[in-house]
């Protein structure tokens, strides 16, 4: 188990170095996905299945796609950047068609390397000062003991996410919403004055188109399952939502001009978010504190259990799904949809 951990850490750091050193943006993005994957393996080893799934789905998957699309829009990937090609002074640059990154002078980089090595040692000694493997669990112990009784979910992390620290999750959903809105404002933006129309990507071949359409239902079922079983098995609203988003985006990646009705996405997004808050307010209405879990807890481990928590996770799943897909779609097609 330790060997696997050490191995994945080594892979992760190598991939991280690759992210920085890569001359080509696409390879950097790929390296970043590798880092995320190695990270999710580490999370699994640290006995954090929920986090591993989230890191895999959201970290490796979506941010990889997001970066790739952005790279495309920033002409750092693919498009034969004809206009400002600096004289390619190395074969690699010639082959990949991307002008070399204007690196700092050698001396400056060596100095910062040295400086960072010192920082690494210091940081390591400070982080190591807290004893590993012996978490004080001042609050954690009480939650582990009280969760099944108080909240009634098999997956204690979900108890924490939606029960004890439900307010954090509300904040988290809001952050995603804010980021999406701000991105929408900037991209869909009224400020588009320059008319640089980016040529829509060529439609993928027949096989890819058909296969991606086939994937849609499978991904939908998988996403729904993960969302609905959030309170029993690892995973939940976020991981499921990410998969749902992937479900909508994969066919679009294949054929960019495919239909994507933004009005529906906005509608789902709005109502799911509002549902989350309304459930919270509902408990406030009849005298209990905000976001207190409602209805009976049911039998532990059963599908219908843990009161209103599954509902919350469904709301989150729908919201994350619609938001991320809307975001990716806006990244995909320049400036047409707000």
């Amino acid at each position: 188990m330790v060997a696997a951990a050490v191995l994945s850490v080594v892979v992760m750091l190598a991939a991280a170095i690759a992210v920085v050193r890569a001359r080509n943006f696409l390879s950097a993005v790929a390296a970043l996905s590798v880092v995320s994957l190695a990270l999710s393996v580490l999370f699994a080893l640290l006995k954090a299945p929920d986090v591993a799934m989230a890191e895999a789905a959201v970290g490796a998957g979506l941010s990889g796609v997001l970066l790739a699309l952005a790279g495309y829009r920033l002409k750092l990937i693919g498009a034969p950047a004809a206009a400002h090609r600096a004289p390619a002074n190395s074969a690699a640059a010639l082959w990949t068609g991307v002008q070399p990154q204007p690196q700092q002078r050698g001396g400056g980089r060596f100095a910062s390397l040295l400086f960072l090595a010192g920082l690494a040692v210091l940081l390591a000694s400070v982080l190591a000062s807290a004893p590993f493997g012996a978490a004080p669990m001042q609050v954690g112990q009480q939650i582990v003991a009280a969760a099944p009784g108080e909240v009634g979910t098999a997956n204690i992390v979900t108890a924490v996410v939606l029960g004890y620290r439900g307010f954090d999750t509300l904040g988290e959903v809001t952050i995603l919403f804010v980021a999406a809105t701000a991105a929408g404002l900037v991209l869909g933006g009224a400020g588009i004055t320059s008319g640089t129309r980016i040529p829509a990507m060529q439609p993928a071949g027949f096989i890819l188109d058909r296969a991606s359409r086939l994937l849609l239902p499978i991904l939908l079922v998988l996403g729904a399952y993960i969302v609905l079983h959030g309170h029993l098995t690892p995973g939940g609203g976020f991981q499921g939502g990410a998969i749902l988003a992937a479900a909508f985006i994969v066919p679009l990646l294949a054929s960019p001009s495919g239909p994507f009705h933004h009005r529906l996405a906005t509608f789902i997004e709005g109502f799911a978010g509002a549902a989350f808050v309304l459930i919270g307010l509902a408990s406030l209405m009849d005298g209990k504190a905000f976001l207190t879990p409602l209805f009976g807890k049911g039998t532990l481990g059963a599908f219908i259990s843990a009161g209103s928590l599954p509902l919350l996770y469904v709301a989150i799943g729908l919201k994350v799904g619609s938001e991320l897909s809307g975001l990716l779609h806006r990244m995909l097609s320049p400036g047409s949809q707000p």
Partner: protein
Amino acid sequence: MARSSELLVLPIALPIAAAFLMPVVANVQASLARWLGIAVVVAALGVAAMLAVDIAQSGPLVAALGGFAPPLGITLYADGISITLLIALLAGGLLFWAASPGDNVRSHVLMVLLMGAGSGLALSGDLFNLFVFYEITAVASYGLVAGRGSGAEAGAALRYLIVGTLGSSLALLGIALVYASTGTLNLADIARLAPERLAGVTGMAAFLLLVLGFGVKAELTPVNTWVPEVYATASARVASLLAGIVSKLAIVIVMRIVVLAFPGEQARELLLVLGIAGVVAGEFAALGSATLIQALSYSSVSQLGLVAIAFAISGTAGVAAGLALALHHALVKPAFFMLAANWRGPIDGLAGAAKATPVAAAVFVFLALSIVGVPPLPGFWAKYLLVTAALAKASPLVLLAIAVVLAAVVVEAAYMFRIAVALYGQPAPERSGPAILRGDLARATLLAAGLAVVTLTAPAVLDAIHRMAAVASDRDAYIAHVLPERGARAALSVSVGVDQRTERSIP
């Protein structure tokens, strides 16, 4: 009295709910969404006012969210300072609504979210919850700075985002260290365990990371490099909100962390060093700045440095001085930005502004007098509180701080009145002084009138601030409020019953 502790969550929950619904409503009718947003913020302001009355009468309010007893669940804690900042935020938000009617509905959504998240910052009593709301405020402000999405605004927002996100990662690392040492995230619990758990190297490292993290918004020294570029590029209202109110929320969080989690001398020493560096950097940079907006941005960095110095002084006096300086700056800076929005361009180009807009020039001079600290204006009383508080503990570093503060006054007068003299100068023959928009002038005059009222009622206002500071700087009272039966709670492993609410205890 249990009733009002439930309302504590409304100023946060209502705006967020409204924000979710606004895009949907906007599809139906654009201006309706905007009015929904404004209505919700007004409602939140009403709730805040009610809470203020309640707190004024019988002390701080505690609300356990989700019905879980404090150390487990997330708690909201509202005392005099947080309610005052909440009201300032909501009122400031309404006054400086950063999105105009014609804009895309998303700007209004961002504004409403900024209000909701800001309330979260003011009220939350949980370290990670503070981090989450801090992050929402940050992202909302990146969006607002990006505003109409022109190249410059997007560039400034992006560079601001990079600094902010770097800071947030550090803050999260700090929170991880705090959790590694104490095992809990509730501020009261941390305060209880702090003396023996957070006094060591880990604790101080955590404090360093937290200060750097929350310092981005609080414009503390190493991480306030984004200030001049963002305030010069963003619209004046966004700048007013960020400089005037959001920065105060962030610096008060730093104060809470210092008072509760790191009461030791070492932490205060670090904050003092950062404060002094901030004042020196801000003042000297502002001295020769080319335009009014640049001078104001650097001046806000130095004012925040002053607040940091004040909060670095232990005891009620320090907190009172910091609060007075913060509230005074929150009142004065937005008005300055409203004027600066119309007086762009090099400073000597402003000649004749006094002739063209005499009221605006008079307001500028009145505000400049207060920020320089001329008695009997409130600016003077704030600085006086700072100097007397600092002098009570005469360590060499504090004496240096006093010298810096007093020297800062002269430098402030130097650039403020260089501008005032330029305003009243004679314009070039054919050019008349710059005009000013009626809306901006009205807001600036309103704030100046507010300052005048505070001048007249200075004794009452200062006593109120002193009372608030006394409550805020008392660690044991905070712990007693949030964890009333601390002794019994630790032994009892399982809390019984779902709907068990925490009674707000009478102090």
